[in-house]
């Protein structure tokens, strides 16, 4: 199987029974990944999935690849070590909004600024699933959960803004109701050299059902999702009657009829300045308003593991390969006879 250049979906399915709740959005994300991989030129033995703890973080068990279900919040750190150790590996990090934005927020932003080669899939269900329903750093203010019976009082993160604030080189958003879109975004993320951050709106039908349905349900999508496509004006709506313009106040939604097509912002994911991408990320503060999806940013910057490896090569070229005896004798020595 693994010697052939091509794989089938079946090759990526491990023998472990999938144990998410029936109806959980995690299933469709898993399917999207398992359907995509056969389309890429990758081998299961070179693929490593690393996760922290949470429902989402069970992901690696279901993949017939190498994997580690590590500890809560630390997946980006473990994955960094793997990416540094072996450039031939395809390292994917999977985790929930609690795992990667609450306890693990720091490792996430540092992996992003370092631009270390890995695909990071953030399953954002705006809730703690595995611990049975507490609010998360992406839950909306006022959220009533087990730990906030009178409503939460803290303002949530906008994960796309946070990633851009950390100067991530690849930043995208997709959702669990659109397999094709997920596959396309994952494909793009995989092709990126560096840290590719993908936020996936994921429905937890047990503890936060319908959190995204206002924007992701079939009937609402065209009016509530704003697809970002490189080189194209940003438009949406049933008849593409809405669009986005950038002004002195930020990005805002307009009727195309009011401003004219030419005034629309033309999306440039390769803009080295993340300012516009950041503005786009602020179009929606919560999944109850028209929300951009797609690739916000995709730029090139030296990759950390490669740069580190490069220093090793340079050192060898400069100093020759390591010679232990020479090292031991590198400080002043004397002989006793």
């Amino acid at each position, binding site marked *: 199987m693994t010697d052939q250049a091509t794989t089938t979906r079946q090759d990526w399915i491990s023998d472990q029974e999938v144990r998410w709740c029936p109806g959980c959005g995690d299933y469709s994300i898993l399917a999207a990944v398992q359907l995509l991989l056969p389309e890429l030129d990758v081998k299961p033995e070179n693929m490593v999935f690393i996760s922290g703890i949470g429902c989402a973080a069970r992901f690696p068990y279901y993949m017939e690849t190498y994997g580690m279900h590590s500890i809560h919040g630390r997946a980006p750190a473990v994955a960094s070590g793997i990416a540094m150790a072996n450039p031939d590996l395809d390292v994917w990090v999977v985790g929930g909004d609690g795992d990667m934005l609450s306890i693990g927020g720091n490792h996430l932003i540092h992996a992003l600024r370092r631009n270390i080669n890995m695909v990071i899939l953030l399953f954002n269900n705006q809730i703690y699933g595995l611990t049975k329903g507490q609010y998360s750093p992406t839950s909306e203010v006022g959220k009533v959960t087990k730990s906030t019976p009178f409503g939460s009082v803290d303002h949530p993160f906008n994960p796309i803004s946070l990633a851009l604030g950390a100067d991530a080189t690849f930043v995208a958003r997709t959702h669990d109701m659109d397999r094709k879109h997920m596959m396309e975004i994952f494909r793009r993320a995989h092709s990126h050299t560096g840290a590719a951050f993908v936020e996936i709106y994921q429905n937890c039908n047990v503890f936060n059902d319908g959190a995204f349905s206002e924007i992701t349900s079939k009937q609402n999508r065209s009016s509530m999702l704003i697809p970002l496509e490189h080189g194209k004006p940003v438009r949406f709506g049933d008849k593409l009657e809405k669009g986005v313009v950038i002004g002195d106040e930020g990005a805002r939604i307009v009727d195309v009829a009011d401003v004219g097509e030419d005034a629309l912002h033309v999306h440039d994911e390769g803009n080295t300045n993340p300012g516009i991408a950041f503005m786009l990320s602020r179009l929606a503060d919560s999944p109850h308003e028209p929300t951009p999806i797609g690739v916000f940013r995709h730029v090139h910057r030296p990759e950390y593991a490669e740069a580190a*490896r490069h220093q090793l090569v340079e050192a060898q070229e400069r100093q020759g390969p390591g010679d232990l005896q020479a090292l031991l004798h590198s400080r002043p020595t004397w002989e006793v006879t």
Partner: protein
Amino acid sequence: MPDTVLRPPREIERVIIRFAGDSGDGMQLTGDRFTSASALFGNDVVTLPEYPAEIRAPAGSLAGVSAFQVQISEQPISTPGDAPNVLVAMNPAALRVNIEALERGGVIIVNVDSFEDRNLEKAGYDDNPLEDNSLDGYVVYEVPMSSLTRKACGQLGVKPRDAERSKNFFALGLISWMYTRPIDPTLDFINDRFEGNERVIEANTAAFRAGYNFGVTTELFEYKYTVKPAELPAGTYTNITGNTALAWGIVAAGVQAGLPVLLGSYPITPASDILHELSRHKNFGIRTMQAEDEIAGIGAALGASFAGQLGFTTTSGPGLALKSEAMGLAVSVELPLVIIDIQRGGPSTGLPTKTEAADLLMAMYGRHGESPVPVVAAHSPSHCFWATIEAARIALKYRTPVLLLSDGYLANGTEPWRLPTATELPDISVAFTTSPNHTDDDGNDTFWPYKRDHNLARPWAIPGTPGLMHRVGGLEKEDGTGNVSYDSQNHEHMVRTRAAKIAGIAADIAEIEVEGDVDADLLVLGWGSTLGAIATAVDRALDDGRRVARAHVDHINPFPRNLGDLLSRYEKILVPEMNLGQLSKLVRAEFLVDAQSLTKVSGQPFTALEIEEAIEEVLGD
């Protein structure tokens, strides 16, 4: 430089000198140079540097005093000595902070220029101690080091302020004369170190010569001394700190394992120097990652181990506390990993620049659940090298995180080290698993990540290996398959198996040996950096006709297999420790022997005298 002191140098067996001054005065450099020159001359040397905690405390303040103690000897020694015989004090604060340590009747050499009102006040002296007879019990030499240095350098056109910076070399020159040290190594050093900066080379050289000549020409000093070369085992020697030895041990472990090394670390005193040293040796294929915190450091190291490299992480107490949870993961996924803790004064931020050995019980038990890890302790600066290789050997062979303990005293202290040859280093390589290791019920070959070898170690199959894809994690795993399992009996089995694996290492480590009077009633049992002081104390007690034996544990988990037996042979057991009795707790619990603690938690290593006195007390008379 002809010597005008007519008397030939007096031969002495050993001398303990402490250089003390303001942090800006370069005392570490001075001490280090004197040590190197003595080592090159063939003496046995052991050092004890002491830094202030502040980067730069106010000049002249008590907090800003930096000191460096060195013992040089014609006999093999293992401590920097108890009370210094000679104190070089560059300013009043240095005198004040260090006078208490000096032996009664010892020699004090002061930079008398610095004993002016402002400095006296900063040091909290109401009266000038040089004038109020408070130093009557000592032999005091007042040397105008600043002005003489300024003068020597002034001739070269160096500005007085700049010249003053060279006064440590004046002191070094003077002491070098006093103890008949060779001068060439120091002159060479100055040329090397300050290469490209001619001005500084000239000034330091001039100051050094001026100091030397001051000894030669003035009649201030009655004698000069000499300490003959020590009779050390033949070989090539270098003078090494524990942290350098440890860093080289990491390099050597990688070489001897045939694996690339990844160090994931976050800076912290007194461990940072290991990161610094290793980051210079990239040509060995060593990756050093300065992580965002200690958890990321161990996380990255564990990731590298999963990917088939040799993962290390270095830290000190506060960082080790943070790594607890991730160490538990390493125990659960059973991958090789070496965690290195350079202990310092605690609790909390504590005394970052002082030594202590109070992390032992945390090393043993600082993880939730039953989470056993082997614990190895280094006992001298050069032993840091060997202990690191040993820790890596165990980690690799048994696929387990291993905790290696060193401390601030070992980290910064030095001793001469006979360099090992290539053949003296053990082969610690292990094989990756590259093919299925199990046949399932249907007769298919398959890979079981938790099928153990006879050492109870699980296979190490790394990403990139076709056909052996598998997942590991922190949830309990089914024996053999490694699948997640919530089964009661399986958990019981796995907990006990992990414990048995670590306990079983006892069969694979050296037995502990007794030194001294094997048939004595009293055994002094030590671990870690107390070795030097214990050995010296026991030797002295033996010299005094006392019946006493000693033994030192380098493996604390598991203990050497003969330790219980050994302990049962002695009526009394004394355990000196730089904590409140942690090893003592372990041996009492394990062997039910009435081990008595001798504890010290002052941020300072034991002196041999303290241990000698305790021995006397236990033995009575």
